[in-house]
């Protein structure tokens, strides 16, 4: 609050009122934090009941989860590495969500992005230096991924095809295409049991961030989240998208180019998922193969919804889920629980957090518009 020079001097009675804007701001900002954290606690509570029911100790499980995910520098680095693709696949859900679209086919863009990067590498390795090759591979992955998800957005606006179903179908088609390419024209004859493309030479791999055992994918993912946040919250395109997401008719009457916004946002979203596939190839696998369809696209949906489609909130949520993911192995070894334990926990958290959406706006304390009537 800035006090202007010509303001009348404050009286005692007005003083509490001057605090109100700040209190309102705090109240509105606390609501998602309080409800979100409560939801996570309830989810963990329900999961504890499940663990108790099968006769194991939830306390030990959570202890191991902390140790495996964040207990040491080694496990933190492991969690961060696993968070890297989730940041990008979550953006693939969060950006279209601002326009009111539910895209669930990010997996397809990841897979095709990886294949595109590997295909692009074939003529480049040995002829072009590493850095420009990596840039070209990233561009190829982003173009293919963007086209794939952008197609779902395009069909939604210009043909009225439901984007949830079409992106899902496209995702299955993408996996079939990957199998065809990896088994057929792009197959490295040396890969026997596990068909793959030709492995990349070490200098064409994406290295680690200096001082850490985490590849550059993490930095790229965080940068993408920040850029997306700027796109949505700062630019006029983001504002137009939010208007169109709120009410398409109103946006059209205002003369906003809804069709181009939808096609553009879905294409950007898809290009991020494609980039995730490229990073998986150049930083983890070293070649494109069936491991690309490891479910990052589906976990990304979870991350985006947990972050309430806020690109900055995606960063901590992805790291948290990366940590849960990373601790899976430790839980498996120490407690004799199956690796699906992590899936059960993720599913439980996801359901409870989505359910808690219903509590937004219900509590008077978070809604300054209702304060007057409260006393």
């Amino acid at each position, binding site marked *: 609050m800035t006090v202007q020079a010509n303001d009348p001097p404050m009286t005692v009675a007005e003083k509490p009122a001057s605090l109100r804007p700040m209190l309102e701001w705090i109240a509105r900002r606390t609501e998602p934090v309080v409800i979100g954290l409560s939801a996570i606690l309830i989810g963990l509570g329900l999961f504890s009941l499940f663990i108790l029911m099968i006769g194991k100790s939830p306390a030990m499980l959570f202890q191991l989860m902390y140790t495996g995910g964040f207990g040491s520098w080694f496990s933190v680095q492991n969690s961060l590495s696993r968070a890297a693709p989730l940041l990008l696949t979550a953006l693939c859900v969060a950006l279209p969500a601002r326009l009111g679209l*539910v895209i*669930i086919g990010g997996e397809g863009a990841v897979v095709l992005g990886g294949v595109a990067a590997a295909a692009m590498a074939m003529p480049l390795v040995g002829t072009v230096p590493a850095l420009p090759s990596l840039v070209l591979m990233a561009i190829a992955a982003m173009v293919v991924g963007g086209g794939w998800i952008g197609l779902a957005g395009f*069909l939604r*606006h*210009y*043909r*009225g*095809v*439901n984007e*949830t*179903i*079409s992106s*899902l*179908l*496209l995702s*299955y*088609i993408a996996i*079939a*295409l990957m*199998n*065809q390419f990896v*088994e*057929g024209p792009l197959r490295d004859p040396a890969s026997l049991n596990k068909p793959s493309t030709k492995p990349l030479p070490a200098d064409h791999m994406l290295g680690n961030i200096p001082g850490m055992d985490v590849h550059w994918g993490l930095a790229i993912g965080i940068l993408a989240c920040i850029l997306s946040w700027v796109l949505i919250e700062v630019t006029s395109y983001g504002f137009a998208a939010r208007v169109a997401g709120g009410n398409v008719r109103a946006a059209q009457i205002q003369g906003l180019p809804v069709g181009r916004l939808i096609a553009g946002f879905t294409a950007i979203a898809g290009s991020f998922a494609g980039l995730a596939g490229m990073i998986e190839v150049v930083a983890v696998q070293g070649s494109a193969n069936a491991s690309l369809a490891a479910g990052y696209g*589906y976990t990304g*949906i*979870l991350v985006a*919804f947990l972050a309430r489609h806020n690109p900055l909130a995606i960063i901590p949520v992805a790291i948290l889920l990366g940590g849960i993911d990373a601790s899976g192995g430790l839980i498996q070894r120490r407690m004799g*629980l*199956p*690796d*699906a*334990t*992590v*899936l*059960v*926990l*993720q*599913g*439980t958290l*996801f*359901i409870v957090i*989505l*359910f808690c*959406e*219903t509590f*937004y*706006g219900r509590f008077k304390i978070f809604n300054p518009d209702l304060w007057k009537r409260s006393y």
Partner: protein
Amino acid sequence: MEETGIGIWGVPLAILAGAIRVSTPFIFVSLGETITERSGRINLGLEGTLVFGAMTAYAVAVMTNSPWLGVLAAMATGAIFGLVHGWICKWPKVNDIAIGIAMMQFGLGLAFFLGKSFIQPAAPHLPSIPFGFWSSLPQIQAALNINVLFILGALLAFGLWWAFGNTRVGLILRVVGDSTDAARAMGINPDRVRLLATALGGSLAAIGGAYLSLYYPGSWNEGISSGQGLMAVALVIFARWNPIGCFLAALLFGGAGALGPALQSIGMTQGYYLFYAAPYVLTLIIMIATSSPTRSLAGAPGALSLTK
């Protein structure tokens, strides 16, 4: 080619056999989803229900040595999954599509978790009826060896089609699906109807899972479903919320899925993996051809969030 005795005719026969063998889970999941969507709600979690149903059916069949008890147990768990989904979705501001994805993940996780110990033992299979007894050709006999659940699914499709149009329950379901307000005006509780419709949809989807683990491929493992539950949701739109359409679409999907292996068996291996995409490409093309940006799909329930 000579030894088989039927040569090139093996391809359509293999497609027919494949259609009958592969379509049963599609029939049950899509019929279940039709009931749910006709009540104005969408359940994307049926993939999880299907896989959990497969695990339950297999586990119960191993323990009791009766495949039919397995099917019943699967139906019960499917109904529970449906009830949970239906109860959560009745609250305001809860996104039913997202809850569906969450339920799918939860169902898959729980099925893999609890089913870990059932990968080894063999469960008794569901019976099938040899309609090919008249032929001396083994291919025809194999193709016409039709599982009981397929026949039940076909009967169910026709039964549902009749029930939607001619019974009081069918009318109530359609009213709730078309307009929540109209249903309330008629004194119907839309939340309760949707809850029951989601539960029924879940129990039917679980039968599809039971077919997978107890007949074809006939064992329990984590890769048992390759997205049949999710595909069935697309199939319902494809079939325009019509149960008989669902049955025919499921046969078409099954046939399209069998195209690749059938062509491979006569030596055509080019583009083998692309044939796996055939059902998905087919659905997408038909959706593009029949959708319109200005009106909702013909036959779509008015209260369905998917087509709004």
